[in-house]
């Protein structure tokens, strides 16, 4: 079998990515069609920067979704005799009906770089957005009362937040993401504290709004508690009675550390915005009406702070992606075999100056995803400032 030329490689990749192209076209067509009815999201399509960012981000999201269809080989499979195979090299002995070329070459143990990159997208996009959501829940739930009530609560929480922010991230990771820490059970305590916040947030959200309407309140709060505590028992303590929710101890450790590092930043932003917004007239009107403090915080202040929060959310997913990559780069990631981009860069860097492609491919992938998120955030900021 002949090796592919560069043109062949690009054509091959284009064909493999066909599900992604179709999904992208559908997503763009629908968004453009209903642009005027989609609020801030629709306005995004007025800015070329935002649209480019959205396109790049969705490319990776769809890649993660369709990863099984796109990848050409098993990301963990090793093909003997193809160590460090060049871009477009042919397989020595392809199986019947299997893909015949290494589209982007093979790495130092002869695994397909292209398939690893595609599967790595799934790994990254599984953890980064979820960790950011949890960090936001923690930051919002603590930042709202700190900014609204001020006083001792604010002083105490802000001191804690500054404490975490003053920690050099890399040192924290080296201390928290080790096999020894998993033995001591510290990640579980962390998870027990951090994972309770989404439940607290949702319960407060429904309680403050519907406490005058008990049937509705009981329904919403009850459902939140039922599903929340079910997921909580599974995710934090691995004690889900049915076994639907569970998390590998190493993954839990990585996840918890990333949430922990991110939440003080969110806290600071939320606190600052609440301090600004609470002087507005509509807050005073709410207070005069006799609304409770949590109603004002969650239903009056929070919706009015959504613009900067959405922008920060996009930026923070990018930052989390970088953090996950850093963890992988230092070999602290989920598992040594895992195809996530950080670990793959770490694997490839030993032979970097001789065979660069195994490290270069995930590096470019990570860069493009973060770039897309930054552009998306920039577009959103521009459009939300226009009102």
């Amino acid at each position: 079998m002949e090796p592919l030329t560069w043109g062949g490689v690009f054509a091959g990749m284009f064909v493999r990515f066909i599900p992604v192209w179709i999904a992208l076209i559908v997503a763009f067509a629908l968004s453009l069609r209903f642009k005027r009815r989609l609020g801030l999201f629709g306005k995004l399509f007025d800015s070329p920067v935002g649209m480019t960012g959205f396109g790049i981000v969705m490319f990776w999201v769809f890649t993660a979704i369709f990863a099984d269809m796109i990848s050409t080989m098993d990301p963990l499979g090793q093909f003997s005799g193809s160590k460090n195979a060049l871009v477009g090299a042919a397989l020595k002995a392809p199986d019947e009906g299997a893909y015949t070329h290494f589209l982007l070459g093979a790495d130092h143990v002869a695994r397909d770089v292209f398939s690893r990159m595609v599967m790595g997208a799934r790994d990254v996009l599984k953890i980064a957005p979820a960790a950011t959501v949890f960090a936001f829940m923690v930051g919002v739930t603590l930042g709202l009362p700190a900014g609204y009530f001020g006083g001792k609560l604010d002083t105490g929480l802000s001191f804690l937040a500054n404490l975490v922010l003053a920690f050099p991230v890399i040192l924290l990771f080296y201390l928290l993401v080790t096999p020894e820490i998993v033995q001591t059970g510290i990640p579980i305590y962390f998870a027990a504290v951090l994972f309770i916040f989404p439940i607290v947030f949702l319960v407060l959200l429904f309680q403050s709004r519907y406490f005058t309407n008990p049937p509705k309140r009981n329904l919403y709060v009850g459902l939140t508690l039922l599903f929340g505590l079910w997921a909580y028992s599974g995710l934090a303590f691995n004690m889900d009675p049915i076994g639907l929710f569970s998390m590998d101890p190493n993954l839990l450790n990585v996840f918890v550390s990333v949430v922990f590092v991110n939440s003080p930043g969110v806290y600071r932003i939320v606190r600052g915005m609440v301090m600004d917004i609470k002087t507005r007239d509509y807050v005073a009107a709410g207070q005069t009406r006799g609304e409770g403090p949590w109603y004002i915080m969650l239903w009056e202040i929070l919706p009015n702070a959504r613009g900067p929060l959405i922008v920060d959310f996009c930026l923070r997913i990018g930052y989390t992606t970088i953090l996950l990559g850093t963890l992988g780069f230092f070999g602290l990631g989920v598992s040594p075999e895992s195809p996530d981009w950080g670990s793959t860069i770490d694997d490839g860097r030993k032979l970097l100056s001789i065979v660069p492609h195994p490290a270069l491919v995930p590096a470019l992938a990570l860069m493009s995803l973060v770039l897309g998120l930054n552009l998306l955030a920039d577009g959103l900021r521009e459009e939300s400032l226009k009102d």
Partner: protein
Amino acid sequence: MLLFILRRLGVMLLTALALTFIVFYLTNLPPNLEKLAKSEASVRMTDDQVVSWIENNGFNAPVVSRYAQWLGVMPGWTKTLDTGEVRGRCIARGQDPATVASYCGLLQGTWGMSTVFKKPVTEVLGRGLGQTGWLMLAVMLVMVPTSLLLGVLSGMREGSRTDRVLSTFAIATTATPEYVSGVIFIALFASATTGISPLLASWGWIEGKTLFMGTATSAMDDITFWNFALPVMTIALYGIGYIARMTRASMTEVMTAQYIRTARLKGVSFGQVVLKHALRNALIAPFTVIMLQFPWLLNGVVIVETLFNYKGFGWTLVQAAGNNDIELLLGCSVVAVLVVLVTQLISDIGYVFLNPRIRLS
């Protein structure tokens, strides 16, 4: 002003104590001590032997008391073994217990021994910090002028073509963490098979096989452009985008101020307005940002020193953490925490000095 500085110093001290205690606690967890016992004494120890080793070496005392001893505010432990040998925190092997001081901790200048390098922690750290100092100096010399220039140029005329191009560049660099840009730089400039080096070599423009060197190990003795440019660029690039964006934001704000319009209407040329009226006020905000970049630079230093094999502070930290070298890791953390807190203090105080609108009393 004095009161403000004193209060800041108080909070800083409290933060430093809390952070070092957290690090102390996390490095002294039972599994880490077990590992230390096995690596120091013998790998094939039984569980009982491990327990007695931990006891004989003073690791079984409560964490708070050990922390106080390590800090040097409590006298170090002493213990008489069954064999009659007297051991203690401050007593080195073969030293007469009667002659040693009873306090030996951080405050007394005793930072302990590194188990990886078999040298005092202060010596290992001193050497590493010296190497990293050169790296940071070079990074600052590249990063600060470049980013300020980019920021001022793009903020000067908001929305112009220059602004668009430079802003996109800034976004792209903030999306490129050090481990990505480092990999790309090596592939482009320091690989014998890809990038521009093979091309230049075939034209006979360069003597060696590669244009730049892929490792900075040789820079530890003799810094040259060819072995130092890539690590410096890698660290600087990530910061450039961020500082440039902050400068741009501050510059655009200043450029819309009334006094700038007045100056323009008086007939002062655009260049003069930018240099004489806008620049000084626009550079207040970036000053704090540059100072607050230090924690991030620390991150970059660790990554780049690992990637380019430059044996400075970051490399030392990785070695300490990877090999369970508790004393050295504690030393590294103290340095890191101090760097972060001191730069925060400088940025706070500097901001007050630079910006006359802020009054503290």
